[in-house]
């Protein structure tokens, strides 16, 4: 059965206030087209989680779509910091639950395995742990090892309503390949109730069946499949296209003040009807062709 649909329909399946896990990592495989459509549809009050804060989360926070961010810290690599996330934390408009990369990943892993909690060595002796203990309905607790009596930090699972995962290749049923490193994406998909796959390319199920060892997200977990080239622009997709340095620099400059950010949203999000108009706005085929990855390098 085909699950292939439009980006607009996939996004419309997400209610305001939902917990959404996003696949981005700093400036790579970010769910940018998804984030822009969420903003255009006026979806609000989201909880966003990811193991390393990325450009997709920052854009959503900047546009006022997010109430709560559960993350392991993050940046836009050398391009700059997550200015919208940071401003939200500094001004108290964003509730941030700040962990480390591995502790977020373990929380997804516990969710994937159906475990009620998972012990971890990280966070202990840090102010991250103190902060998380002070938070309402704290998701961490010190517990004893039932076999040795040693003390451990236990984390509750993360159970998102939906994972949105940007991949290179999927079939119509949502069987998906992630080429290159996968960071926390597989655990995100498996801990979530359902997954939306955004694929650079949809291929035949025959091709998937002939190379099934590459499938990291099984189709039965997937509710919607959207085929959308350059959906992660201006971030990179390994073996598909490089990041667009000029566009990321323009974003970073815009995030330095709320007024400039508003103008950025007007130009690249509200001011375009859909992803196709966005691609024209950033320079169309001429620009995008220049970002195509080299086959042997992967970037």
């Amino acid at each position, binding site marked *: 059965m085909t699950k292939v649909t439009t980006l607009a329909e996939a996004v419309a399946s997400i209610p305001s206030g939902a917990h959404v896990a996003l696949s981005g990592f700093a400036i790579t495989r970010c769910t940018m087209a998804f984030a822009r459509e969420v903003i255009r549809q006026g979806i609000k009050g989201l909880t966003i989680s990811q193991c390393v804060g990325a450009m997709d989360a920052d854009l959503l926070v900047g546009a006022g779509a997010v109430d709560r961010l559960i993350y392991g810290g993050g940046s836009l690599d050398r391009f700059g910091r997550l200015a919208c996330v940071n401003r939200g934390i500094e001004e108290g408009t964003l509730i941030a639950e700040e962990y480390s990369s591995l502790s977020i990943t373990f929380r997804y892993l516990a969710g994937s395995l159906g475990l009620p909690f998972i012990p971890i060595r990280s966070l202990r*002796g*840090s102010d991250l742990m103190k902060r998380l203990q002070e938070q309402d309905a704290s998701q961490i607790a010190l517990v004893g090892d039932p076999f040795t009596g040693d003390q451990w930090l236990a984390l509750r699972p993360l159970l998102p309503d939906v994972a949105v995962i940007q991949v290179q290749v999927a079939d119509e049923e949502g069987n998906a390949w992630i080429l290159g490193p996968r960071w926390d994406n597989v655990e995100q998909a498996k801990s979530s109730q359902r997954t939306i796959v955004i694929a650079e390319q949809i291929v035949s199920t025959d091709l998937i069946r002939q190379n099934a060892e590459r499938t990291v997200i099984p189709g039965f977990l997937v509710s919607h499949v959207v085929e959308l080239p350059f959906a992660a622009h201006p971030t990179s997709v390994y073996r598909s296209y490089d990041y667009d340095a000029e566009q990321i620099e323009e974003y970073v400059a815009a995030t330095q003040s709320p007024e400039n950010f508003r103008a950025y949203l007007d130009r690249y999000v509200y001011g375009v009807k859909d992803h196709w108009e966005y691609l024209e706005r950033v320079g169309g085929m001429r620009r995008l062709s220049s970002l195509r990855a080299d086959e042997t390098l992967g970037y």
Partner: protein
Amino acid sequence: MSLDYTPSELMAAAGARELQDHQVVAVGLGLPVVATFLAKQTHAPNMTILFELGVINPEPIHTGVGLADPRVWYRAQVLSSFVDILGTILHKGRVDVGFLGGLEVDQYGNLNTTLIGDPRAKFRHMVGSGGANDIASCARKTIIIMRHEARKLKKAVSFVTSPGYIAGGDSRSQAGLWGGPSRVITDKAIFGFHPETKQMMLLSIHPGNKLDDVLATMGFAPVVPPQVPYTEPPTNEQVRLIREVIDPQRMYMG
């Protein structure tokens, strides 16, 4: 030894010297990458290099803007995941050395990458942990690389993102953690930690620097032994490898 080198090149060579062949090393980007590749290309060819997001032993030929840049994944032997690298290797206890940098470090090697200011009042939020807290908590030892400035080497950090020896003494093992920082390498000196108090202890001063200046540009007083030698400078071959092979575009060495 080389007479023509920059402070950054000396720091990279000093970092490389701390690494041994066959070790498993977790690195972020910047100077630690240069130190690690320098060790791998000289005395430690069998070292295993890990990047947290799921990369083992890459051989980049172009300089990247960060771990999220596919340039630094090039020719890796493994491309996998956080559970694979930070879970089954780091958390399992198989990482011998982790490299860390930060905004601020205190006399017990506690690192801050989260915020500057008063966390209960006015502050500026920065980048947070990423894998840094995990590496500080789970690696068998860590090496900290920092600029030598009083505002970075502080008596108390604004926020402990990644624990060192916490409050000194045995407070780290009391918190259930093994390992801890073994060295702090700055652009003026190299420090270790006192075996009992776990306070930062001056081990060597880089050639061209004076003890008074090293101490005056710190926010706390380290343990100073009666004799403090000069740091061994990089060799001509190390400087050549850094400039011609590892960082020809001078992205990391600035």
